């Protein structure tokens, strides 16, 4: 077992154990013990794919970015939701849908997933597919069909966070 | 009462699928529907007005809970239903391989 794998395994086990604590919401020793055993067992079954970086994910910078990203993202989501709400409620339904292409510089799959999900969750845009660095986005109100512009408009902000958090 | 109605309705729908749908997958779905109906029937049998789930934690009193036995039976029956459905679908895969159809009318080499 390489050092990288150990790191991945430990990271996975820790995340799973945290998940367990959240699930049980108790600190009885029995539950903790069960959580440790089960996390260790389950981690063994999935650690190799669960993470690319292993314990590297716990670097303070990443964590900090992650914590900042949450409110930023939520705010975007709420903003965009209001936008969609307006379009849905408006009797004329002011929509101008279409599928545009955008590009990303992200390399890691997990980062791309983060990006794609963020885009999807942000109302108005929906990730249809990813192929390498090309993302196809269904846009409820197409403002531009240019790849560069669209990339910045749709995913730019998220991409910057993702780059730090996952790469 | 609506539960009884729903249970009877599910059973009836299941039988409807069995009697009038030629597609064998739909027939199997009909069986599953019937099964759900039966499960619902069992659950509703054990209900008491104002009853709650029979888990005696957080100060729930025995008088307040619904009859746990039908629920236990349903748990068992659900698994049985899943098993049968899985097996039926696998068999249908093989039927399809040989007959190239799922129409029950056509799958009748053996008769009389």
């Amino acid at each position: 077992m390489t050092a990288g794998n150990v790191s991945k395994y430990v990271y996975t086990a820790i995340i799973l154990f945290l998940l367990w604590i959240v699930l049980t919401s108790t600190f009885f020793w029995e539950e903790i013990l069960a959580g440790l055993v089960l996390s260790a067992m389950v981690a063994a079954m999935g650690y190799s794919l669960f993470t690319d970086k292993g314990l590297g994910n716990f670097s303070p910078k990443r964590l900090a970015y992650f914590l900042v990203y949450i409110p930023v993202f939520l705010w975007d989501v709420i903003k965009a939701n209001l936008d969609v709400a307006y379009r849905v409620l408006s009797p004329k339904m002011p929509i101008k849908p279409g599928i545009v292409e955008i590009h990303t510089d992200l390399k890691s799959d997990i980062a791309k997933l983060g990006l794609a999900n963020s885009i999807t969750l942000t109302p108005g845009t929906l990730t249809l597919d990813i192929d390498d660095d090309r993302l196809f986005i269904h846009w409820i109100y197409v403002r531009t069909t240019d790849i560069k512009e669209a990339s910045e408009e749709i995913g730019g902000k998220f991409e910057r966070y993702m780059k730090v958090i996952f790469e | 009462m609506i539960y009884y109605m729903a249970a009877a309705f599910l059973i009836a729908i299941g039988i409807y699928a069995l009697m009038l749908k030629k597609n064998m997958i739909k027939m199997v779905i009909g069986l599953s529907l019937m099964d759900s109906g039966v499960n619902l029937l069992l659950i509703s049998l054990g209900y008491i007005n104002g009853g709650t789930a029979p888990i005696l934690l957080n100060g729930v009193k025995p008088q307040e809970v619904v009859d746990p036995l039908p629920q236990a039976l349903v748990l068992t029956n659900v698994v049985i239903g899943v098993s049968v459905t899985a097996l039926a679908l696998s068999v249908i895969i093989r039927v399809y391989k040989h007959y190239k159809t799922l129409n029950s009318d056509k799958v009748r080499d053996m008769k009389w």
Partner: protein
Amino acid sequence: MIKKSIALILIAILFVAIFFTLANDLPFGDNRTTTGVSDKYIYHGVNDTGASNLVTAIVVNYRGFDTLGEVTVLFVAATGVGAVLYNMGRPAGKKRKKTEASLIVRTGSRILFPMMLLFGAYIFVHGHLTPGGGFQGGAVIATAFLFKYVSDTRYHIDHNKFTATESVVGMTFALVGIMGLLLTGYFLFNFLPNGSPGELLSAGIIPIIYVAIGIKVGAELTGILDNMMEVEQ
């Protein structure tokens, strides 16, 4: 047409019969008989078995034998699916001729898979405390594996490992039953202390059985999925 009307008449008869029998003779909401057995479960279940979840108390303890039977049903069905679909799969090592899943789904499965496994484990470990149980937990575990299949056309399980796991947990369940017989003269007798209700290590043999069932069901359902996924159209 005649066929359809006959069908509809029969269905109507059945519907009316079932519904009105229930409605008239088992008035909804107040038919928990006091002469029946359930009062025993409701009033003494927690003391008898140590499980706060009375359904669990019944499923694993009072009527544990049904559950053993139910595990067997699933086992038989899984074996049956294997036997039915035997030799219908793709040749070893060949990938299924199917559209690949997108990167999003694939990557999603990488992250969610271990989490779902842990959910499953959580559910069957707490079976005696929550509405979950071995089957539900097992189903979640199988769902995790299903996610794998759905997101990766090359995915396949290690049959030997699964078989061995299934065997061990299955035998554990049977052995717990036989141990009860040997120790007390009753098959499936709860020979462990009940502990205090509500805690993880309570309810005697129930958690052991539920863990066994959980793993078994998970493996079993996964086996069924594997068999079905491997079928070459």
